[in-house]
């Protein structure tokens, strides 16, 4: 009986948490837009969330592309099919690695920072203080961060993919000697704009939504103590990464099967 009661209790808690997270999100993004006030805040968050994640994304993208080039070549050359290196690198980056690895890195880099920042604002009573000044912290603090995360992650994923393909090109063509023309033309023949590029972008929009939402909710509901904030930050990275991988499977099943 206890087992069933525990199961019921934890399911209810999860549902309650999801409901609270949904309400937080709706309250922060629905409402009369105030472009004059919110645009500078949004720009600042684009800088913090997007620009400051650019370096790690570009470097990781380059290395992952280079590894793909190297690994792909050693496998394909056994079948005499090294011409297929281009599509292999491009398709794996566009469909999977670009959106997924970007989302995982984003959860670790920007997501944890968002959680810690908002948790700290709660712990130092800055959020309460905003409320007492008759300024809605959801609109003021959560909303610009949500939009910045939601918009910048797909942008980062595109950068990651493009740089990764270049990395694969450098290793495959410049170093290992795959034919330059074949690399690009075979790639072009098998990569479809709508099926591959656009589906990748859609994936990364979904991941951006989920990861940013989790990060903000965890920060907003963090215990206002140092232990609470560190637990919330860890939880953002763990929950965010698992959610990305879970959604990736579902989306892949819908899009590419």
């Amino acid at each position, binding site marked *: 009986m206890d087992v069933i009661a525990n199961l019921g209790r934890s399911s209810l808690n999860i549902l309650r948490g999801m409901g609270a997270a949904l309400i937080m999100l709706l309250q922060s993004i629905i409402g009369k837009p105030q472009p004059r006030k919110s645009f500078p805040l949004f720009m600042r968050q684009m800088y913090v969330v997007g620009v400051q994640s650019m370096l790690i994304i570009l470097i990781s993208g380059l290395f992952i592309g280079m590894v793909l080039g190297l690994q792909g070549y050693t496998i394909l050359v056994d079948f005499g099919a090294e011409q297929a290196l281009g599509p292999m690198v491009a398709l794996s980056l566009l469909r999977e690695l670009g959106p997924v690895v970007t989302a995982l890195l984003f959860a670790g880099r920007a997501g944890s920072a968002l959680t810690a920042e908002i948790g700290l604002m709660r712990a*130092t*009573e*800055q959020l*309460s*203080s905003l*409320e*007492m*000044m*008759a*300024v*809605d912290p959801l609109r003021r603090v959560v909303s610009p961060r949500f939009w910045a995360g939601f918009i910048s992650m797909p942008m980062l994923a595109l950068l990651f993919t493009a740089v990764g393909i270049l990395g694969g090109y450098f290793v495959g063509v410049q170093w290992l000697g795959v034919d330059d023309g074949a690399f690009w033309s075979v790639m072009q023949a098998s990569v479809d704009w709508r099926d591959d590029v656009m589906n990748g972008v859609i994936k990364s929009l979904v991941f951006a939504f989920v990861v940013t939402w989790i990060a903000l909710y965890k920060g907003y509901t963090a215990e206002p103590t140092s232990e609470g904030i560190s637990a919330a930050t860890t939880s953002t990275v763990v929950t965010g990464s698992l959610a990305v991988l879970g959604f990736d499977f579902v989306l892949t099943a819908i899009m590419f099967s």
Partner: protein
Amino acid sequence: MYDQKGCTVDNLVELKDVYFNRGNTVIYEGVNLQVPRGKITAIMGPSGCGKTTMLRLIGGQLKPRSGSVDFAGHQVPELSRGELYELRKRMSMLFQSGALFTDMSVSDNVAFPILEHTKLPREIVDTIVKMKLQAVGLRGAGGLQPDELSGGMARRAALARAIALDPELIMYDEPFTGQDPISMGMIVKLIRSLNQTLGLTSIIVSHDIHETMGIADHVAIIANKQVVAQGPPQALLDHESALVRQFLNGEPDGPVPFHYQANNYLDDLMARGG
């Protein structure tokens, strides 16, 4: 509510028969509190008795389970979100940590509520900011970032921000905690002078008896989930309740026992030995 001469004075804030729970813990059972307009009211009590909760009830950040919280004729718990935000423009709260926004300079912190709620041109806002900072003695520190300020300075800067919109009510949450004697003296002086010059109503939540009793016009003592005594400071010092006297005189034992509830000491020791 009567003052010393026996004539009625009007109350800016009035709590009647307030019950409040946090989770399953009962915080208040039938609290009544009057805050006279234009005076300094102190709310005192042992740690953990829910003094800060009182301020959050008045500010509408928490809702009581039952009872009425009245601010200038408005029932705070019954207001819609918009009405509540409108009402909050007339009150402000000085948080224990100061709660300055860490990503803005001191001047921008003070300017924030003005820019947020008025459409004044920037030059006028800057002038107001200078006046408010001058009032707390920090006009020279306007360009500093909050992390460059000492604890006392941060609290004064937060005070400048709290009075930026000339509120009717300021609530001070533990304003004296963790301050050295000099900055404590400065804050005591500021609270008193702001109250006199601006005609503010102030509520101080504190357990520093000497500083608080020194400046308060009206004191309420919370213990055992209720307001056990309220009145002018002098009247409370020789209050009939032993609990009030214990608290105000800082005696280690009394109605609030030194020992946490336990079974017989001797029995406990013998049981272990055996």
